[in-house]
């Protein structure tokens, strides 16, 4: 198997840089919606970097990748389902 030392190292560097960007972004005075979109975009990028490089998903077959990413729409469906309860007063 190839030695991926450099790839692993630069992946860690990019993850650290993206984390620093996230931390500074919250004090940059961005509009709330823009900030949320930015932070979630960076988070998805970081998650993909970990999954594809460190967890070696990019070397796995399409079938396995599909099986792993399939539950994400289910989670979004769950979010949609939870929204019905928002009218409830949660003050305890």
């Amino acid at each position, binding site marked *: 198997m190839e030695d991926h030392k450099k790839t692993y190292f630069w992946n860690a560097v990019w*993850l650290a840089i993206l984390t620093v960007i996230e931390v500074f972004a919250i004090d940059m005075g961005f509009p709330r919606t823009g900030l949320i979109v930015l932070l979630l975009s960076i988070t998805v990028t970081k998650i993909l970097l970990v999954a594809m490089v*460190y967890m070696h998903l990019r070397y796995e077959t399409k079938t396995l990748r599909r*099986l792993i990413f399939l539950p994400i729409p*289910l989670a979004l469906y769950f979010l949609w389902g939870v929204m019905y309860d928002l009218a409830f007063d949660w003050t305890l």
Partner: protein
Amino acid sequence: MDQAITMNKTSFGTATTGKLGMWLFIVMDGLTFGAILIGGLGLRIGAESWPAAGSVLNVPLTAFNTFLLICSSFTMVMALNSILRGDQKGLVKYLILTIAGGVLFLCVQVWEYSHFIIGSEHLESILKGAGFTGSQFLPTTGIYGSTFYATTMFHGLHVLSGVIYLSIILSMALKEKFGPDNYDRVEIAGLFWHFIDLVWILVFTVIYLI
């Protein structure tokens, strides 16, 4: 050690059953985290007020913790890389570094909790500014406190499990039970550890930054 059983090559390539089992566990565990985070998000949308990012929680400290997990993910993948090249010393060295990263992460988290639980006048003024009363930040400090502790404690338990899991792998590595043709258990343990890092990336954004 017995040769790991591999699945049908056309569907799963050279992935072993153990690896597929870990992926199945990761997907299920990921959905559990998803439910906790989405549930917390639902409660947050329904709550009257919610503290701004960084007003109560220590973002720089947690960013350091995120950095720790990123580094430990790097050392974990380097441990696998070492054994693939037959480097037993490298495997042991990187496993120790990964475990140390996990332990340090837990120590920082315990320090953060103790700071909140012991409380202080400074914390009281911060909490007052965020709309809470009292000098301690506890799981009973409104829905915000419940969401924070439930999510981070659940993740912390995963880190603790990962540290124990990797310690077992380390004890096997010290007995030279792994090699370039027998690295399946290291790879599977690595998948779990990277998953812990992956989930923390999401927890950090949702709980601390947004």
